[in-house]
């Protein structure tokens, strides 16, 4: 804990992303980016998420390349359990034929799960290491080194996932039903009468738009809250040890559940998008 800083500062510090932006005086970081507006990048979110994504793909790819059809090794067995679990979920929900949905669900599930599990890394470990590196390698003020290591507590990431899924939803709807079918779905339901077209359109659009919002906000909200509580627990002194333990054990349930929910809802939404009513 940064002793010369107040608790509020401590929490604030932990919840701030490391930023990078392009200003008039060249590439700038963190506080210098306060006015950079949209064209700022959270380098911690990017680095952790891409790193974990590559970790996931590397492991699964290497297992896939070496996959034996005989007796599998332990890692292969684990990977196959995950793949089979996702495949079962996809097959029970999405009845069409698609070579995209199952890999999409697998990517979402494992990637989000890995990013969520960053939540279980003690809240001070990575910021401290980052501060030390920043201080000694780059000569920065250690309090000016920010790192938020759980990518799913960044709304940018969850929103990016949700937007990706949303684009696929629209794409599938148009591919399966055609433009007219999709338009009809938006305008002729739930009241099948020309007079109701505006009302239908408003209702259906809200339904449609609510889906990516709920996806993005559910994951972000859960993870942000849990991370916030981890940080709060870290401020209570010695009692934090049992509290941390209890909260972490609880999150062994919550973190996979959130990853699973994101995956399942993605499948359900895509399934709804490609079904005719």
């Amino acid at each position, binding site marked *: 804990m940064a002793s010369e800083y107040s608790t509020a500062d401590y929490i604030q510090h932990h919840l701030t*992303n490391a930023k990078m932006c392009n200003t008039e005086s060249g590439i700038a970081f963190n506080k210098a980016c306060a006015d*950079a*507006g*949209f*064209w*700022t*990048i*959270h380098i911690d*979110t*990017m680095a952790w*998420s*891409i790193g974990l*994504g590559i970790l*996931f*793909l590397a492991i*699964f*790819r290497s*297992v*896939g*390349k070496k*996959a*034996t*059809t*005989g007796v*599998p090794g332990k890692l*292969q067995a684990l*990977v*196959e359990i995950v*793949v*089979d679990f996702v*495949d079962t979920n996809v097959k029970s929900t999405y009845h069409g034929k698609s*070579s*995209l949905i*199952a*890999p*999409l669900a*697998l*990517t979402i599930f494992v*990637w989000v799960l890995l990013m969520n599990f960053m939540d279980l890394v003690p809240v001070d470990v990575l910021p401290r290491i980052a501060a030390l590196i920043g201080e000694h390698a780059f000569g920065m003020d250690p309090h000016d080194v920010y790192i938020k290591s759980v990518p799913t507590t*960044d*709304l*940018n*990431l969850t*929103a*990016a*996932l949700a*937007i*990706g899924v949303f684009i696929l939803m629209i794409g599938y709807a148009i591919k399966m039903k055609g433009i007219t079918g999709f338009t009809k779905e938006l305008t002729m339901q739930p009241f099948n009468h020309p007079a109701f077209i505006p009302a239908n359109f408003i209702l259906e659009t809200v339904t449609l738009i609510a889906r990516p919002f709920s996806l993005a906000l559910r994951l*972000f909200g859960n993870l942000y809250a849990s991370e916030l509580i981890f940080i709060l627990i870290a401020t209570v002194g010695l009692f934090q040890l049992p509290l941390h333990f209890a909260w972490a054990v609880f999150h062994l349930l919550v973190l996979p559940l959130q990853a699973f929910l994101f995956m399942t809802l993605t499948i359900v939404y895509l399934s709804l998008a490609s079904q005719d009513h």
Partner: protein
Amino acid sequence: MNMNATLIGQLIAFTVFVLFCMKYVWPPLMAAIEERQKTIADGLEASKRGEKDLELAQAKATEQLREAKAQAAEIIEQAKRRATQLVDQETQRGNEEREKIISQGYAEIEAERNRVKEDLRKQVAVLAVTGASRILEREIDAQAQNDIVEKLVAEL
């Protein structure tokens, strides 16, 4: 929350990850899983078939054993019957042989006895004649007295 260009970066990363997963991760894993599932299904079926074969073979073996036992019992029965028959036959033959030998013996004895009788008779005739001549102390004309001797001998 401050939304910014991270969103775009993440969207690109997400797309790339999903495409990579779809192209290079999912197909080999799924292929391996499906291949193994097929192998296991085949193996299970083969084992079921093997079990059925074994059952059939066992039933056949039991049947053959039962037949063999029945045959053996029959053969033993036959042998016993044959043995009894042989014993009976041999006993009968023995008896007949014995009867024959005995009757032969009797016949021989009879013949001997007759011969001895004849002998005796002749000797008695001689004796009688000798005795008579001694008694009479004279030579009897054997020819003349022959009829008497003959009579005597016949009486013996």
